[in-house]
C-alpha cells in the first residue's frame, strides 16, 4: 500500500470527469436514484427498506437542521461514488485489482468478474458508495422484468461489489460516436451521467474538470462549493454547493469553531456570502 508518485500520474492525463451538485436546487425528488438504477441494471428486490443491503449507486441522504417547529429545515445530499482522485481509499486495498482509478478519465472502475467479494473496499470507503450483492440479481423472467435491462451494462453476480461508474458506458458510447464521425474529442453535452441528465431541476452538472470550457470547471471555483469529508484527503471529484451554512457544516467534520461561513467572496464579478439557513421574517 504505497503512496503513488502523483507527478507520474498527472503526466499525459487528459480528462478528469467530475460533478457539481447544487444543494440549493436539489429537491430530494429521487429522480437521480431511479434514473441511475434504471440505467445501470441495478437489482430491485421486493423489499427495498433494508437500507443496509439495498443497492443504490446514487443515494439520497436526508438531513435536518434539527431546529424545532416552525424553524425546521430539511435538505438532501445526493451521493454518487466520489471517484476520489490520485489515491482512492478503496483502490489500494483491493486484493485482486478489481477496482482501478483510470488515470486518463479519473473514473474509479469496478471489474465485476474480477471481484472476489472480500469487501475490504467497503470497509475502506467512508462514503458507503460500494454495494455488495448479498443476493442474486432480481429480474424475474416470469415477471418479464428482465426486458428493460440495458445490454450496455453487464449485470452483476451474487457475491461481488458494485458501485457508481459515472455511467462509463455512456463515455464509451460517446467515444464510439465521435470515432465514427472521425472526431478525436467528444463534446461536453455528449457525455453526461444518467442522474445529471434526469435531474428535473438541473442540480447536477457533469463534465471534465480539466477542461476550462466545461461548466463544471468554472462551477468548482464558486465560493459556495465544497466536497464531502474533504479533510480526509480523499480528493473527491464530486463537488457540492450550498448557500446555507447548516448544510455546508454537514459536509465535513468540524471541531468547534472550525467552520467559517463564506463572506463576500467574489466570483464572476459578484460578491457571494452564505447565510445560516432559510430566511426568517
Amino acid at each position, binding site marked *: 500500500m504505497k503512496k503513488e508518485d502523483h507527478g507520474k500520474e498527472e503526466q499525459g492525463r487528459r480528462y478528469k470527469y467530475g460533478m457539481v451538485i447544487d444543494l440549493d436546487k436539489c429537491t430530494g425528488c429521487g429522480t437521480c436514484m431511479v434514473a441511475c438504477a*434504471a440505467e445501470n441494471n441495478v437489482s430491485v428486490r421486493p423489499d427495498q427498506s433494508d437500507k443496509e443491503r439495498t443497492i443504490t449507486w446514487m443515494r*439520497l441522504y436526508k438531513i435536518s437542521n434539527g431546529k424545532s*417547529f416552525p424553524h425546521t429545515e430539511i435538505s438532501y445530499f445526493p451521493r454518487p461514488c466520489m471517484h476520489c482522485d490520485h489515491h482512492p481509499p478503496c483502490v489500494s486495498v483491493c486484493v485482486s485489482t478489481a477496482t482501478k482509478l483510470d488515470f486518463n478519465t479519473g473514473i474509479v472502475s469496478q471489474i465485476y468478474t474480477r471481484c472476489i467479494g472480500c469487501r475490504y473496499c467497503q470497509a475502506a470507503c467512508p462514503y458507503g458508495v460500494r454495494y455488495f450483492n448479498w443476493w442474486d440479481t432480481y429480474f424475474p423472467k416470469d415477471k418479464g422484468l428482465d426486458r428493460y*435491462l440495458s445490454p450496455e451494462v453487464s449485470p452483476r453476480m451474487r457475491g461481488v461489489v458494485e458501485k457508481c461508474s459515472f455511467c462509463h458506458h455512456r463515455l464509451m458510447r460517446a467515444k464510439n460516436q465521435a470515432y465514427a464521425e472521425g472526431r478525436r474529442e467528444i463534446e461536453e453535452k455528449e457525455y453526461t451521467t444518467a442522474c445529471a441528465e434526469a435531474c428535473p431541476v438541473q442540480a447536477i452538472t457533469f463534465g471534465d474538470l480539466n477542461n476550462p470550457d466545461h461548466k463544471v470547471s468554472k462551477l468548482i471555483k464558486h465560493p459556495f462549493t465544497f466536497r464531502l469529508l474533504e479533510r480526509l484527503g480523499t480528493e473527491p471529484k464530486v463537488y457540492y454547493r450550498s448557500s446555507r451554512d447548516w448544510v455546508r457544516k454537514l459536509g465535513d467534520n468540524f471541531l468547534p469553531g472550525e467552520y467559517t461561513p463564506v463572506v463576500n467572496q467574489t466570483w464572476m464579478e459578484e460578491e457571494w456570502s452564505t*447565510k445560516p439557513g432559510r430566511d426568517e421574517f
Partner: protein
Amino acid sequence: MELNRRNFIKFLVGGVVGIQATPLPWKFTDDVAIWTQNWPWVPDLAKGEFSEAKSVCNLCPGGCGISVRKVDDRAIKIDGRTDYPMNPGGICPVGAGGLQLLYDETLRFTGPMKRVGMRGKGEFVRIPWDEAFQILGDRISGLRRKGVPEQVAAIDGNPKGTTMSVLIDRFMQAVGSPNYVRTSSIEDTYRLGNFLMQGSESTMAYDLENSDYVLSFGCGLLEGWGAPGRVMNAWGLWHEGHPDKRTTIAQVESRASNTASKADYWVAPVPGTEGALALGLAHVIIKEGLCDERFLNDHTFGFEDWDSFEGRLHSGFKTMVLKNYSPQKVAEITGVERETIVSLAKHFAGAKAPVAIYGKGKDGQNGSLYEFMAVHSLNALVGSINRAGGVLLPDALPLSPLPPVKTDAIASEGLRGPRLDAAGTDHYPFAHSLINNFADAVVSKSKSPIDTLLVFSANPAFTVPDGGNFRDALKRIPFVVSFSPYRDDTAHMADLILPDCTFLEKREDVVWPVGLQYPFYALTTPVVSPVYDTRNAGDALMELANAVDKTVGGAFPWEDYEAVVKVRAKGLFEAGGGRMTYEPSNPVWKQTEGKGAKPGYGDFDEMWDNLLAGGFWYRPVNVKGGSLFNTPSGRFEFFSKKIAKTIESASSQSTMETTLKQMGISVGEDEACMPHYEAAASEAGRSEQYPLRMMPYEMINLASGWIPSPPFLYKTIFDHQLLKNESFAAINPVTAAEYQLKEGDRVAVKSPVGKVTVRINLFEGAMPGIVYLPLGFGHTAYDEFIKGKGVNPNSIVLAGKDPLSGGPVWWNTPVRLIKV
C-alpha cells in the same frame, strides 16, 4: 519395477504433482470462475440495434417530454427531452421508472379477463375480447331496454378535456345516463374559482417563470404540484444566479415539506385556515395602501362598497376584509405571528411581479373554493392579473368539438333524471361531479341505484378520501368493469377487465397541463407495440358502443380512436398562431404571440404528422388588451354575481339562511359571494375523544394516484417512511412526548371512521397536534413490490363538505393515537 500398491500411489502422486507444473490448473480454475456465473437466473442481455423514440409521458397530467432508448423493439430507458418546452431535459422519478410499469407482468393485465371465485379475491381468467364486449354490451343494452340507463355509471380519471374523457362522457350520453363521474382534482377548484372570479373555465395560467415573488399557499411545488416537469424546471431557474437577484419563494404549509424547507420563507398556519391568512395579507395590503389602484378601478368589481340597481347597499371586499381580518384576528385563527403576517404582506406587495398560487400538495385532490378565491384575490389586489409574472388570461385550447350526440328516447329520458352525486343541485350549484357523494348515494340506499360501473384510468377504491366509503360502494354495485391496464385496487374488486394499453403502447393526447400559463397540446407515441393483448381504451369504448346497440354505436362514427383525436386536433390548426418547435435558448415563457418562431407547419396534415412524431403544439400568451374578463360584470369579481344569482334563485323556495346552510356557508348573503374564511372547514369534528388532526401528505417519489409506483421508487423511500411492510406517521416530538411515544413505536391512528396501525417517526418539522400520514402506501392489490406495504390514510379520512363547491374536506380528520 512391478506395479504394486506403493508404486501405483507413487505414479498417481507424481502425475498430480506433474500436472501442477502445467498451466492446466490455472486455466481450469479460471474457467470455473467464469462458468459459475452462467446461472439461469443471471439475465443474459439481448443485444441489438439501438434507437431513440420521442414521446410524451402521461403517467400524470403533467405531460413531460420523454425520449425512450430502445434495443430493437425493447424499451430499455426513459430520459427527458431537451427539445420540449414543458421539461427541458429532466423528468420525475415516476417517469424515470416508467419501464417497470410497462414490463412488470404481475403488475398488469395481460388481456381481457373475467372474474372467477369471490368478488374482491382478484382471481380472473382470460377471455377473448369479443366475449368481453358481448358480456358488457348485453348488460348495458339490457338496462336500456328496461328503461333504466341511468343505472350505468362511469368513473373517469382522465384529465378534463382529453379526447378519452370526451369520449367517455359521449358514451354515457349515448347510453342515456347522467352519472358520468370524474375523480376530483385541484383542477375542479381552479376551474370553479376561475369561472366565478374571471369568468373562464380553463385552468389557472400561473406565469411562474417570470415571477419574482412566488407566494405558494400549499402547492407542493417540489412534491408534484402542477406539471412537475415544468414546475421543477422553474425551480431550477429560480435558483440560478445570485441570491439577491433570484425569485423569492414563500411557502404556506403546516409541515416542513421539501418545498417548505427549500423555500426562502416558510409560514405555517393551521391547516384549513390558509384562506384566513390570505385575507389577513389582503387586510395589510389594503391598509398600507399597497394595492394596484389602477387595476382595482379599471378591472375589478366588488372591491369598494356598491349599490345594486334596486338600491341596496352591498359591502365590498375592502370593507369586509378591513372589518373581519385584522392581522391580530388572523394570527389567532391561523397561529401565525402577527408580525409575520404584516411583513409577508409587505414583501408580497412590494415585489415587482408577485404571484399568489393555490394548491393542496399534488393535483390529485380538490382544494377549498373559498380558500382559492381568497388567495387569488391577492393577485387582483397587487394587479398581478394579466401581467407577466402573474396570472395570465389565455383563451381556451381551440380543439374542435365533436358533433352532438343523437340520443334516442330512452337516452333522453335517462339523461333528464337527476345525477346520483347531486352535483349542480341547489346544494352544490357549481359542481360538475362529486365522487364522494356518488359513493355515499350508493352506500346509503338499501339496493344499489347503480347496476353497472365502468372505471377508466382511475383507482377510486384507493384514491378517494372517504374512509373507505367507495370500497363499500364497489362491494354493493352488482357489476364493476375496469379498463385499467394495471391490477389496481379497484380492478381487483371488478367483475370484468378490458385492459387499456400503457402510456408507452398507445396514442393519447395531453391537454394543457395544470397551472401552465399557455395553451399546450401534445400526443404520446406508441413507443413499443403492445406487449400484451391489450387495447387502447378509446378503441375498446367504441367497440363496446357497437356491442350495446345501433344508436349507441351510431354516436361513434370514427374508424378508430386516433381518428377522433385527429378530428379534435384540427381545431388547433384552424385557430392558427400555434408553434411546434422549441429552442432551449428561447423558452415559451419568454415568447409572445406574433414575435419569435414561425408556426413551423404549412397545412394540417404536416402539423398532424409532426404531432404523431411525438410532437407538440403551443401558443405563447401575451398580455391582453380590451375586456379581460367574461364575468357578468365584465370585470374581475371580488363579489361574484354568479354566486349571488344562484343563492337568490335557490332561496326562492326556502329562506336565505337555510339555503346558505345547505351550501355549507356560515356567513351572511353578501360575504357568501366573496372570498371569506369558513371556520367550520378547519375546526370540524375535533373533540376530547379525537384531540389530534390527521393530514395525508404527498411525496413526489411515491405515486398516490391511480398509477402504481414503479418498484424502483421504493429505493428512494427512507426507512423512517417505510420499513418492511409498515409505514410511518410523522409527528412532532412535543406531541409524541404527550403520548409517551418514541421513534419507531407502533400506534393505531383512530378516526371516527376507521383505524390504521403505523409506526412513529419523530419529525421536528411536523406541526404539533397533527399526525401526518404519507399518501401512496397501503395498496391492497398490484404485486409483491407494492401490495400490503404500509397503510392508506384515505381509509380513515373523515371528509367534510367544502362550502359551495361540495368537494371533500380531506385535510382535517380528527384522530387519536393508541399505543400498540
